[in-house]
């Protein structure tokens, strides 16, 4: 287990006492967590945080609250250095079924991301940026295709690049390993590591029930579960994977200690 030199400084995202109630049903109860900027010498180290919980615990609702798509019954999500309340469009989302515009080609889908980024770039620069990303993520030969012609994994990559091109530093991924075979999971992990290290402030928030893969990729994990006697899910445990020596290690899943941690968490969710 390698120990890395790092510092955690500025607060990037804060979920403060998030509660969500539909009618009489309490879905989320006092969800609290923070994401800080991680700095490592001589590299752009983004943040990868997991919210782990079993199916039906309220992960997707929390996902939408973090993206500013739905308002919590009480509590706030604040982001960036000035810690303002999150607004829709400030946090990118990659839903489980990788929603894209089916009437547009892959190139046009990526172009939309860039068009709404607020950057003023010429058509030629736009073309070059899109082609550059497509090449990095193995999509060059698919730019003229429509989303329905791509596999699930390819659509997921397009979704991720689309959000990266909008300039969103925060990207939420809902069950990114769901339905993928083991080789594809490895590719997705590589891809997400690549995205998280493009920019110092890039922050990936993975909402998943896949404990092993979510932990293998993250620097911090929050367990979302139901506490005894409390209605609604809340953060029951914070796992600092950097301190445990499990972060930023491509082969961590082979470590027996890591597998012990995975087994322990299985009983906690």
């Amino acid at each position, binding site marked *: 287990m390698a120990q890395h030199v790092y510092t955690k400084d500025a607060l990037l995202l804060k979920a403060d006492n998030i509660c969500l109630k539909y009618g009489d049903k309490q879905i989320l109860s006092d969800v609290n967590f923070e994401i800080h900027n991680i700095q490592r010498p001589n590299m752009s180290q983004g943040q990868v945080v997991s919210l782990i919980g079993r199916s039906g615990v309220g992960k997707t609702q929390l996902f*939408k609250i973090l*993206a*500013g*798509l739905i308002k919590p019954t009480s509590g706030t999500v604040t982001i960036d250095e000035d810690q303002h309340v999150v607004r*829709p*469009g400030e*946090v*990118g*989302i990659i*839903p489980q*079924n990788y*929603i*894209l*515009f*089916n*009437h547009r080609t892959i190139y046009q889908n990526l172009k*939309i*991301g860039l068009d*709404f980024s*607020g950057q003023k770039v010429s058509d030629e620069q736009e073309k070059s940026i899109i082609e550059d990303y497509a090449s990095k993520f193995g999509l060059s030969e698919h730019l003229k295709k*429509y989303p*329905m*012609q791509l596999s699930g994994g390819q659509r997921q990559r397009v979704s991720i690049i*689309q*959000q990266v091109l*909008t300039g*969103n530093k925060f990207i939420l991924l809902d069950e990114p390993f769901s339905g993928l075979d083991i080789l594809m999971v490895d590719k997705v992990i590589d891809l997400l590591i690549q995205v998280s290290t493009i920019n110092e402030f890039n922050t990936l928030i993975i909402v998943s029930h896949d404990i092993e893969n979510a932990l293998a990729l993250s620097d911090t994990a929050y367990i979302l579960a139901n506490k005894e006697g409390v209605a609604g899910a809340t953060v029951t445990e914070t796992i600092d994977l950097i301190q445990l020596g499990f972060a930023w290690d491509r082969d961590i899943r082979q470590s027996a200690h890591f597998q012990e941690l995975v087994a322990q968490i299985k009983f906690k969710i």
Partner: protein
Amino acid sequence: MKETLKNSVLPLSSISKQTLIILVIAESAIALLAWHLTGNGLIPSPLRVLDAIIKLVTEASFYDEFFKSIGLSFKGMGISLVVAVLVSYLSLIPIFNPIAKFVIKCRYLTLTGLIFLFTLLTQDGSQLRISLLLFGIVPFFVTSLMSIIDTINVQEYELCKTLRMNNWQTLWEVVIVGRLDQVIEVMRQNFAISWMMITMVEGYSMSEGGLGTMLIKSNKYLDLSTVFAILVIIFLIGILFDYVLGQLRFWLFPYTKLQLRK
């Protein structure tokens, strides 16, 4: 061969285009034979209908009536589509939503009950026909368009929000541009209704002519061969229009082909 026959009766199985053509030809031949064998009583036989078609198409006056109906059809469909699309898109703006809901419910209003009112409100037979046609078609168009809008996955709107589109840009991207191919499909599906309406409204204002007028006159004189001949012509126009709109949809929106069951 055995496999092809088996697939032809197996639910959800795929058959080749060639097999499909053979099935269509064979089933049409059986239907024509059954018609031929049971005809010649009240229902004219296929050969008598064919004679009536030849007679019809060789008369110059037929083309006047035919193009009157075609003209009315295109005019009615075109205006109805514009009105229906506007009403449907505006339904997403809350203030206009009750109007769209009311238009949908107008499907239950019968044209026969409103003909006197429309006669008073319009200036001539041509205006009467178009007005009745619009009143008849628009509610069906709006119903189909609204059902398309209602089934849009909420995640598409959410994607737009995360891409920082405002509500107008989202409406444009998801509802207008994103569903343009389905407008053509709605047009194709509702073309049959419009033809039904056209023959009906032509009957309400017979002085203007058209295939509907011809149908009513032929029925009046029990000239069933001509009635069937006109029906066959209308049927063939419908098939042609169906095909043209289907191809137009694939040509303009190639991605729609990807959504079809092979």
